[in-house]
């Protein structure tokens, strides 16, 4: 590479890294700052005396700074702790159910010909484009009647309506591009169920892994339904719990701290799975 090309590449990389991290940094820095620091004008570019007070506060602990100032535990702590537990539960269950259900479904749609396939596929794709605000009211009224508001099972069911169609769509594309091993399997005398469970699934590991990650992220990041269906209840999820710091009594530092925590699982997953992400083929 010529020196000039190298210069432009380095410059481009620097711009890309700033573009990627600046918006996150701007908020995340609050997690290590005090209210007075945050209120300073012009805005401080970095915490001059970084502290972990907010991380203690959101879990319900007081924090005493070196200078003796006491930062009081947050009144939202119970919601945050519940939120973390519920978010993990919902995301894990949704991921497991989505994967179990979608793998066979996508397989059938990707690799077999049968009547009405095109119409059924169109119906699945249609549900991908449904805006949550359109279905929110019906879900809400239905849930009130069934007593499902403020329950985890209720939230899991609505979340599945988001994850199943989108994950199915991605996996159908992936399965279509696998080699036609069904032919081999028929010669070898294996049943269709064997082919699916013992041949296709291990072959498609990376695609299924990505599909599971997508399901996890959609569930973990879901906020619209949670805001309406479970806010304030024992089934509150982390995003819904966090929004208390945003709307009720603004607490930028505690909001940033809990937001940072909520980003860790998706970041770890995305970081380690980025190699596989582009292996998904577009249908």
């Amino acid at each position, binding site marked *: 590479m010529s020196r000039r090309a190298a210069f432009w590449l380095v410059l481009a990389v620097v711009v890309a890294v700033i573009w990627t991290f600046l918006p996150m940094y701007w908020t995340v820095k609050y997690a290590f700052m005090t209210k007075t620091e945050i209120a300073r004008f012009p*805005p401080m570019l970095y915490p001059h005396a970084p502290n972990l007070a907010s991380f203690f506060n959101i879990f319900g602990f007081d924090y005493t700074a070196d200078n003796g100032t006491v930062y009081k535990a947050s009144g939202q702590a119970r919601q945050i702790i519940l939120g973390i537990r519920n978010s993990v539960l919902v995301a894990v269950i949704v991921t497991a159910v989505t994967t179990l259900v979608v793998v066979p479904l996508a397989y059938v749609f990707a690799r077999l010909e049968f*009547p009405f396939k095109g119409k059924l596929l169109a119906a699945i794709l249609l549900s991908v*484009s449904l805006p949550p605000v359109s279905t929110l009211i019906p879900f809400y009224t*239905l849930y009130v009647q069934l007593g499902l508001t403020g329950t985890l099972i209720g939230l899991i069911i609505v979340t599945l309506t988001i994850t199943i169609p989108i994950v199915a769509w991605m996996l159908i594309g992936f399965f279509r591009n696998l080699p036609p091993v069904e032919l081999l399997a028929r010669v070898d005398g294996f*049943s*269709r169920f064997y082919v699916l469970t013992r041949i296709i699934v291990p072959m498609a590991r990376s695609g299924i892994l990505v599909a599971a990650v997508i399901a996890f992220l959609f569930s973990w990041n879901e906020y619209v339904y949670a805001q309406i269906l479970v806010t304030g209840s024992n089934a509150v999820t982390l995003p819904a719990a966090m929004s208390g710091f*945003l709307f009720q009594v603004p607490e930028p530092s505690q909001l940033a701290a809990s937001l940072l925590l909520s980003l860790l699982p998706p970041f770890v997953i995305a970081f380690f799975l980025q190699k596989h992400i582009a292996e998904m083929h577009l249908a």
Partner: protein
Amino acid sequence: MAHPDNSAPAPHRRTEVSNLSFALIISIPVLVFLLIVVAYPLAYAFYLSFNEIRFFGGYSADWVGLTNYANVLYDPSFWSSLGRTLRFTVETVILTLAIGLGLALILKHLPPGWRWLRALIILPWAVSPYGAGIFFAYLGRGQTGIGTSVAAALGSDQTFNLISANFVMEYLALGAAWNMAPLVAFFLLANMLTTPPRLYDLAKIDQMSHFETFWHVTLPPLRFTIFVFSCITTVLAMKTFDYIFTETQGGPGSASAVLTYTLYKISFVNLDLGYGAAMSFFLLAVILGSTGILYFIWGRKEERQ
């Protein structure tokens, strides 16, 4: 594409489950589930849209026929919200694809020792829309934002608000693109890596400029991916609610009240459920219509290649 199991109606074979019954065994439970939990709300919303729902003085539903739909068409806030949705969508799609393409080009040229940067560039994609909304809210607001910091660094003591009534939609689109572009970049990168290097040699022999090389060699294999992501981004941008909800709450004033936000206010603040349901079908029509138009004027051309 060649299907591995190319079963045009084949005569019955007793030793194997037929395609249809195998497909049904596997997909019926899921399809029934989707039918109940997707079709039911849709049908219920459809029912609501023909009624006027009242909560004061006890719940009541009065059949009003198409009145709600007619009212939507005479509602100036519907048209202004629709305008904002379209503006946000068009800007988001263009920014997402342009930035995604730029990131992909950078990632492609990384020397082998720098490949770990790929794992960092993907991270915004993992941020939830409500998280991205919070990030860009603090980044943009006059009191806390980067605009004021830059102004201060240049010696000003004014606040500089990026979330202003005139440009709030553009600012929102930029944040949405920040959120979605990395995924686009990864798919485009995977596409780029399949372009035979010989084509670049050919471009050199033909003495193409950098731009011509990009236009004639790099871009053509990406066109299908760009089309698919134009559709995906269009749908996502039109559906967006939580991102805007946490970033601007439709403000300043109602400068960023897109259709989804206006719908939310009608249904959950004004509790005008019938009217909200009717308007939500207009939104659905706009989403399906836009992807349909994209497909007919662009997608069919790409498929033929």
